[in-house]
């Protein structure tokens, strides 16, 4: 494993109140690779990736032990402003969630809150981001229509474009295709493979085939523990752990 490590979780425990959701998780995320998190629901996958952009802070009464790194920066250090982290680590959520604004405003929002005022630049950036997320052709004639009029699959690609506009280094996908049809799912998988040239990607998925198709590395979670982590190819052909094998062959989960 000679790849550069982009993000890293070291000895991570996480608690919702008294309920421990993550137990001593250690994991490296390699730069310009797709890392998938699989496992049955409720095993802590979302909780885990939300540590990488400090999203779990929004939930009251939580506690984190251990360290999370972005390059050499320890991001969970209280002296680090979460806003600075989120400008480098973006996120696409499970449910497509455009703002009830126009398509254009959805994309430009991230630029505006980051202090960019140049109208021409914003316009160009909106176009680039929509093109990158392969939705430009479908929306270019109605940029000022409400984003809520788009279909679910289009909305999700819009949300990806919105995230791309901020030009982060890492993108976290939390089950981005969970509510989409197979065609939209295929489009988004294609997009993720395209994006890894420029981004480091972490994706949570329920769908084993999806993990096999898009990811280079896979981590298998069970009840808050990282049971197995390795190259996707190895994991799906020769899992080292019995529980992993049972899960990926569909014997439980």
């Amino acid at each position, binding site marked *: 494993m000679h790849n550069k490590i982009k993000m890293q979780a070291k000895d991570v425990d996480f608690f919702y109140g008294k309920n421990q959701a993550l137990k001593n998780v250690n994991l490296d995320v390699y730069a310009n690779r797709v890392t998938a998190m699989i496992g049955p629901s409720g095993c802590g996958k979302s909780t885990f990736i939300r540590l990488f952009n400090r999203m779990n802070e929004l939930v009251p009464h939580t506690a984190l032990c251990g360290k999370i790194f972005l390059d050499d920066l320890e991001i969970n250090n209280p002296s680090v402003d979460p806003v600075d982290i989120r400008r480098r680590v*973006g996120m696409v*959520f499970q449910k497509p969630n455009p703002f009830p604004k126009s398509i254009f405003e959805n994309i430009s929002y991230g630029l505006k*809150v980051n202090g960019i005022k140049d109208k021409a630049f914003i316009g160009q950036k909106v176009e680039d981001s929509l093109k990158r997320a392969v939705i430009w052709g479908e929306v270019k004639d109605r940029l000022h229509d409400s984003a809520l009029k788009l279909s679910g699959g289009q909305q999700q690609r819009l949300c990806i474009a919105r995230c791309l506009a901020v030009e982060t280094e890492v993108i976290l996908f939390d089950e981005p295709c969970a509510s989409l049809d197979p065609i939209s799912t295929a489009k988004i998988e294609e997009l993720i493979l395209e994006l890894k040239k420029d981004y480091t990607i972490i994706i949570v998925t329920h769908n084993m085939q999806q993990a096999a198709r898009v990811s280079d590395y896979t981590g298998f979670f069970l009840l808050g523990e990282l049971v197995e982590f390795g190259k996707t190819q190895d994991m799906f052909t020769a899992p080292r752990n019995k529980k992993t094998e049972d899960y990926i062959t569909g014997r439980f989960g």
Partner: protein
Amino acid sequence: MRNTQRSQKIAFFFLFLATLLIVVPVGLIVVIIIQKGLPAINWQFLSDIPRQGMRSGGIFPAIIGTFYLVFGAIVFALPIGLLAAIYLSEYAKDNMLNRIIKLAIVNLSGVPSVVYGLFGLALFVVFFKFGASILSGSLTLGIMILPIIITTSREALESVPQSFREVSLSLGASKWQTIRQIVLPNAIPGILTGTILGLGRAAGETAPILFTVAAFYLPRLPKSIFDQAMALPYHLYVISTQVPNVDEKVRYGTALVLLVLVLFMNLVAIIIRYNFRKKKKW
């Protein structure tokens, strides 16, 4: 089977009866006021000062006084109420103390208005020496409607989906940027509804203005916020109980104007809310 159907019918009957019991008297009051008051309404009644010891002429100073008071109450209560609501909804931690504060504010809107009147008298008229004035009256009405504005605004803010906040923050927005650009715009219809309900309440109450601003008879318009003013609810009270031999038409005409004013504001609130519900899709 038959039995459940019968008991269902009986239950429906009583529920319907209860509804009727509420609707009919309210409807009757409205009908009577319109019937007896409408003949009094004409341009002179709406635009002239009261004449002949308030037995004829118009009610213009009372209408204007009510507008001033309501406007003053909102200017005072809306910014403070909104800021309090933002604090309670977005910043206050979910702990015992804050839950008690929220509950206390909800309950404050049930305090009888005369209590606010006495409070206004003690604080603004006497302690701050504003005297009986539009300022004292507006502040008193403002304090009375604060709980309504805080509670409805807080509920409007809290009904904005958490996912909007998460997305905004995930795009690198600060908490304040998120509140200003995402949460507030989506809560505005709810905030407006609360504000207008507060307006309606402020326009209709007599007790809070009784000791703090209302003039028995002031046949001119107020000149400054330290002036006394007439106001519709108090004027109605005066011509109904304090001045003998006022024509019934004039009394009901005044009631009608007040009623229309308050109902109109409630109607606006309902329309705003309806449009919002129709548009909202999350």
